[in-house]
């Protein structure tokens, strides 16, 4: 069985490597892609959209339809993860562990006992043994705002430098994940609840698709941002640049929310009470 699988993999890999000689060489100026499509983008994208980063202009403007469905694919992955993993949460019937912070004593409270919910001296901990790591918590709490600021910069500066909605959204989600890993799932959920993540995810996709619909209402093609010029109060070329920014914000929101939803569900096996 294993030898057969190895043979199949080796043969398929050999065929793929052999066929890759049929491609034009890397960076070949005479290849079909470099002769027909690329010159148009390189020459016209700055004049059409006033966006210096050609990759952003192609992704969000010329190929905006593709990017919209990429966002929907990611959103669908988040929805599928919820459907597969999410189980109803048990409330106040299970055994919980609390740590008395000043002394470091761990209390195990059986079901039916009184939980010290609002006390500042007690903090709830996960049922796997969790050490009290002040250095990790403090460091993560200090760097999380900078990560979030950098993510916003990546989204907003995607017109001029590498980056954009996807990368910025992922970094924004990673900041919440870092919080959830360093502290616990509950303190991350207090900042960004499950419901809020779902709302942000749907809102992000809605912003993207809604921009396209708004263009259609204003007598243009779907996702033709130049039609938004009268709404934004700028000329039609700048309107394409602003339209790209609007959809990038939508992509960032959707991706951030989906990454957080995936982590919440996977790390707690769908129960969303105790995380990693």
């Amino acid at each position, binding site marked *: 069985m294993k030898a057969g699988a190895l043979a199949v993999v080796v043969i398929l890999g050999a065929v793929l490597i052999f066929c890759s000689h049929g491609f034009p060489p*890397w960076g070949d100026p005479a290849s079909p892609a470099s002769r027909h499509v690329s010159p148009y983008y390189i020459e016209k994208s700055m004049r059409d959209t006033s966006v210096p*980063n050609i*990759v*952003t202009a192609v992704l969000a403007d010329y190929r905006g339809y593709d990017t919209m469905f990429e966002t929907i694919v990611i959103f669908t992955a988040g929805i599928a993860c919820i459907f597969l993993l999410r189980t109803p949460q048990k409330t106040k019937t299970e055994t919980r562990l609390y740590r008395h912070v000043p002394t470091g004593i761990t209390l195990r409270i059986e079901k039916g006992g009184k939980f010290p919910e609002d006390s500042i001296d007690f903090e709830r901990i996960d049922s796997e043994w969790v050490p009290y790591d002040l250095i990790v918590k403090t460091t993560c709490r200090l760097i999380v705002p900078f990560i979030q600021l950098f993510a916003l910069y*990546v989204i907003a500066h995607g017109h001029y430098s*590498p*980056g*954009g909605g*996807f*990368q910025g959204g*992922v*970094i924004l*989600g*990673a900041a919440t*994940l870092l919080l959830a*890993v360093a502290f616990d799932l509950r303190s991350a959920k207090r900042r960004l609840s499950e419901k809020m993540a779902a709302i942000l995810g749907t809102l992000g996709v809605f912003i993207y698709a809604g921009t396209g619909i708004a263009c259609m209402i204003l007598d243009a093609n779907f996702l033709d941002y130049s039609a938004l010029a009268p709404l934004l109060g700028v000329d039609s070329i700048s309107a394409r640049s602003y339209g790209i920014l609007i959809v990038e914000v939508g992509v960032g929101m959707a991706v951030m929310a989906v*990454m957080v939803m*995936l*982590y919440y569900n*996977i*790390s*707690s*096996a769908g129960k969303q009470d105790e*995380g*990693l």
Partner: protein
Amino acid sequence: MFWQIEFFIFIIVIILAVGAISVKDLLSAAILFGAYSFMMCLLWAIMGAVDVAFTEASVGAGISTVLFVAAVFRTSRRTKD
């Protein structure tokens, strides 16, 4: 340009890929896969695809490693085969 650096990174990518599928400990496999993503990110950056490199660094080396570690944490750490 600098084909020696590219060649060196390419060798590391192959070693990490083989290691990630052959190691028995799934947590190690997740870490190796993250390192593989980071080396791929360097390759993209050398080839001039900076946007792809950025995506690979944030998604491949960042988020997906965390999700793999979370999945290993909730299932089993040893692989059966």
